[in-house]
């Protein structure tokens, strides 16, 4: 599952498969973090609060 666990092999299958998995999880994590950090900064008044209109 991870490069540090038993049965991990540095072959093309593992690299592609887990590469994409970690990429997806990273994108999701970064997205959530970005929204969270932006919210905190807006609450602290450090960021401009744009009124987001539905278009």
């Amino acid at each position, binding site marked *: 599952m991870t490069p540090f*666990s038993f049965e991990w092999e540095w072959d093309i299958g*593992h690299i592609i498969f887990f590469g994409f998995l970690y990429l997806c999880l990273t*994108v999701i994590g970064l*997205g*959530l973090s970005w929204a*969270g950090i932006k*919210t905190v900064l*807006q609450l602290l008044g450090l960021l401009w609060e744009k009124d987001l209109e539905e278009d």
Partner: protein
Amino acid sequence: MESALFPEGVTRCSAKKFFLWTLPWLLILAWGGVSAVLCLWKALNQTNMSNIFAFALWIVFDLGLIALGAGAFFTGFLTYIIGKKELRDILNAAVIIGFICYSGAMAILGIDIGQPLRGWFIFWHANIHSMLVEVSFCITCYLIVLSIEFLPIILENRKLEEIKPIRLFGRNLHAIMAVFAATGTFLSFFHQGSLGGMFGVMYARPFAARGGFYIWPWTFFLFILSAIAAGPCFTILIVKIAEKLTKKKLVSDNTVQFLARLSGFLLATYLILKIADTIGWINGEAHRAGLRFMDFYKEGPYGVWLPIAEIGICGILPAIMLLIPKLRKQTKWLIIACLLNCTGIILNRFSFIIVTLAIPVLPFERFWSYLPTWQEWGVALASIAYGVLLFSVAYRYLPVFPKERELNPIS
């Protein structure tokens, strides 16, 4: 006061009426709960699954739910990536339906595997060459994406929105929704395909085995295409049922017509490729294994009516109906076409799961029959009940349909 929780500018039925509506679904959910407890406590002999029918009703429900839930990712893809802004009317509903379908499927799977507590082994001891591992990883990630897409809708509840941090977080999430939609599209493409790939790679099972491109059997691509053909139709169906029950117009006709026409086109494309694949399989994999087309359709109830229903009545017919504007614009024919389309996709999943296993490969193996037990029905129908309940609660308290206020002005 409960009405303070309702979205602004819309009416909802009384709490008593709503409670009465939820009662039958809660009962089914309870039936499912009892069934699940029995299966976990007493083991899977509570079902009628056997060494022949290793996959049965629950897997049919799983694959069916996931295929019908494809409306979520496809609508998201069309809205955020292609830029079809008019689909925003129906996007929230599609996301909720998708969330229901995927979480329901995961719940059924938790009971289906022989050792639910070892479910995490799929991730920890992953066999990357297995299509089912690909499916599991993608579905898990996609359920996370769906939850994130569902979250802003929940946070838009009138009372929750009054809390500033919640309002800000919801809006910030909404602003980057395209990122999640793109991730969801990527994940969905692969798991919808891998669900088809699961059967295509069973090279020792002549009914399911297919040739393909590189490591991907043709069923991989056919399952994706059929899912995006049926998913939007399922979304339209649920919306139409909701409109009927609430006696309101919830989504503008343009949106519905766009999705319906697109579904028709995708279904027609899918059917051409499916028929070509079937002919190729008969003359290829089936003949090489020494079997003819009718050899697969002569046992038990699994007769030739299955492919006729799947491709003909529930395939070609709804495709034609959805492509003819005069029919598509009439609600009655639209609903029938959507129903037939969704049924066709379920029949397709059913064929690959059940008929593959039902028809013996060894000439001296006998045919065994299978009918689900009440415990199996309980768990399976509970997913439907859960879906109805969740959608009902979401509709009642959340702004699921952005155009609802505009389409139903309160005089």
